């Protein structure tokens, strides 16, 4: 028993050190390994005191789970990382809920509050993450689906879950507990269904922190410090990331969760001057003409968005950048903090395509450079370059920090169509006289552009 406690302590220390190292680029890989050793140690420590029952089954379950995790981690493409993280997160939440439920069934009446919290948060994280996975994977519509009654449904589900919880505490037994679990699952669905694709970075962060807290709750239930510490660390760090994401969009958490930005229906809440997509003339350009334009510039800022990820165009984007750099063009990448579908998503994709660190710039670092830049090449991106965020008080995205791509001398927009972004609002940048479009799939468009540039060399 003593040795187990010591091992758990060592595990917790390793996890903390690992997390610390994960927050700096130089030590991050090392940090992940440290955390991994810590987690492995915690699992080993569990076997130290002996396993009275089911040893074979436990090992089999570990094998199946690890095998599935390892296979998934190898098979997943970098562009699909957000849904992978959502899925793994949901599994963790589900595990926490199952542990809490088992403890309840094993000894109803003991430390019920932490059991209920573990079940509630774990189940919300499980069902919520699965919905997020479905949206990111394209199995469900990415649009924000605002149910009639919207907020009332959240409220009603929450109240019903709390009531069922009270019934459990008063001795309602397994039927009460089953009802409580079902309502918790429903709450997770109700929470994520109304949230649009563009808000996914926030949702994934918050679900991650939920699973951490659910694991911490099981630490309370099982009086296990390793679970408690690790779960709490994740809960705290997830909360911090959530705050960062909200700040990057200049919106409050409740606005993200309940605002329904990106709703399909043009409800009265949408309002504002830009809510309807207008049909004004835009200019488009062929690959040849774009190549001519690009072969006569001195500076270029590439602004990549989720559309680049969807089209798997990160490699050809880098090829274009390298080609122009070799000709003496000053090439930079501007990364919006919430571009993509999870925090830092674009950075990972560009790293995969071997784009050097030194060419990547954050919003604050680069915004002043746009007005001194010949061309801003915007790839598969919409709302975070919409100038309405700066001046149109009626716009739903007013106040959101944006990349000032519109200030460049010329703006090239690579886009599939004129459809509005997830916020469902028109973008005045489209109609700016300095803007021209390259319509089509980002990978095809950029490949054609690269070919043209090569042939003119």
């Amino acid at each position, binding site marked *: 028993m003593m040795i187990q406690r010591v091992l758990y302590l060592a595990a917790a220390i390793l996890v903390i050190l690992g997390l610390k190292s994960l927050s700096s*680029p130089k030590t991050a890989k090392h940090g*992940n390994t440290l955390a991994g050793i810590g987690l492995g140690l915690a699992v080993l420590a569990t076997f130290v005191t002996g*396993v009275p029952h089911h040893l074979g089954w436990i090992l089999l379950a570990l094998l199946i789970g690890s095998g599935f995790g390892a296979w998934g*981690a190898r098979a997943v493409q970098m562009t699909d990382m957000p849904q992978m993280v959502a899925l793994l997160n949901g599994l963790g939440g589900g595990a926490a809920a199952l542990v809490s439920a088992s403890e309840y069934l094993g000894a109803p009446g003991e430390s019920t509050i932490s059991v209920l919290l573990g079940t509630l948060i774990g189940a919300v994280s499980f069902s919520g993450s699965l919905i997020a996975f479905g949206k990111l994977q394209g199995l469900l519509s990415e649009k924000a689906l605002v149910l009639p009654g919207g907020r009332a449904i959240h409220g009603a589900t929450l109240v019903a879950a709390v009531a069922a919880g009270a019934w459990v505490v008063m001795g309602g037994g397994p039927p009460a507990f089953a009802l409580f679990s079902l309502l918790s699952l429903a709450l997770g669905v109700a929470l994520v269904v109304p949230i649009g694709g563009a808000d996914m970075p926030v949702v994934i962060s918050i679900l991650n922190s939920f699973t951490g807290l659910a694991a911490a709750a099981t630490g309370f239930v099982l009086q296990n410090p390793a679970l408690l510490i690790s779960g*709490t660390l994740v809960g705290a760090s997830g909360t911090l990331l959530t705050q960062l994401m909200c700040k990057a969009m200049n919106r409050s958490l409740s606005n993200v969760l309940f605002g329904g930005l990106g709703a399909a229906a043009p409800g009265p809440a949408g309002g504002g001057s830009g809510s309807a997509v207008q049909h004004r003339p835009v200019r488009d350009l062929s690959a040849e003409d774009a190549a001519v334009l690009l072969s006569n510039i001195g500076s270029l800022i590439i602004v990549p968005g989720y559309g680049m990820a969807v089209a798997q165009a990160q490699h050809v984007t880098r090829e274009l950048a390298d080609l122009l750099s070799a000709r003496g063009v000053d090439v930079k990448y501007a990364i919006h903090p919430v571009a993509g579908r999870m*925090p830092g998503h674009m950075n990972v994709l560009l790293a995969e395509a*071997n784009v*050097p660190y030194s060419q990547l710039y954050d919003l604050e670092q680069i915004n002043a450079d746009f007005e001194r830049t010949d061309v801003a090449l915007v790839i598969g991106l919409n709302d975070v370059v919409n100038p309405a965020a700066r001046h149109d008080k009626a716009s739903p995205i007013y106040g959101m920090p944006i990349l000032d791509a519109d200030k460049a001398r010329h703006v090239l927009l690579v886009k599939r169509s004129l459809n509005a972004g997830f916020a469902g609002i028109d973008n005045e940048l489209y109609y700016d006289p300095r803007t021209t479009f390259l319509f089509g799939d980002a990978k095809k468009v950029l490949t054609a552009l690269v070919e043209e540039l090569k042939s003119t060399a």
Partner: protein
Amino acid sequence: MNADLLTLLTIFALAVFVGFEVISKVPVVLHTPLMSGTNAIHGIVVVGAILVMAETTNPLISVLGFIGIVFGAANLVGGLLVTDRMLALFKKKKPS
């Protein structure tokens, strides 16, 4: 029991502060790996599922525990490997 609860609450409160302190200044480049790294860490809940299954003879609880271990282990191993893959990308291009 009360003393135990208090100890656990103390650990919880301190861990909250440690969690905030440790990652308060993370560069944007590392947001995704940090997220999937912390994602792996909550896979530690597999420990809870093992304890549940090791200490029960009830068939229903055994089944719940079994599923819990599968889920938790997938979360833990998958999260660690995915994070490792991403961080390898960052490292690879450093010399260039």
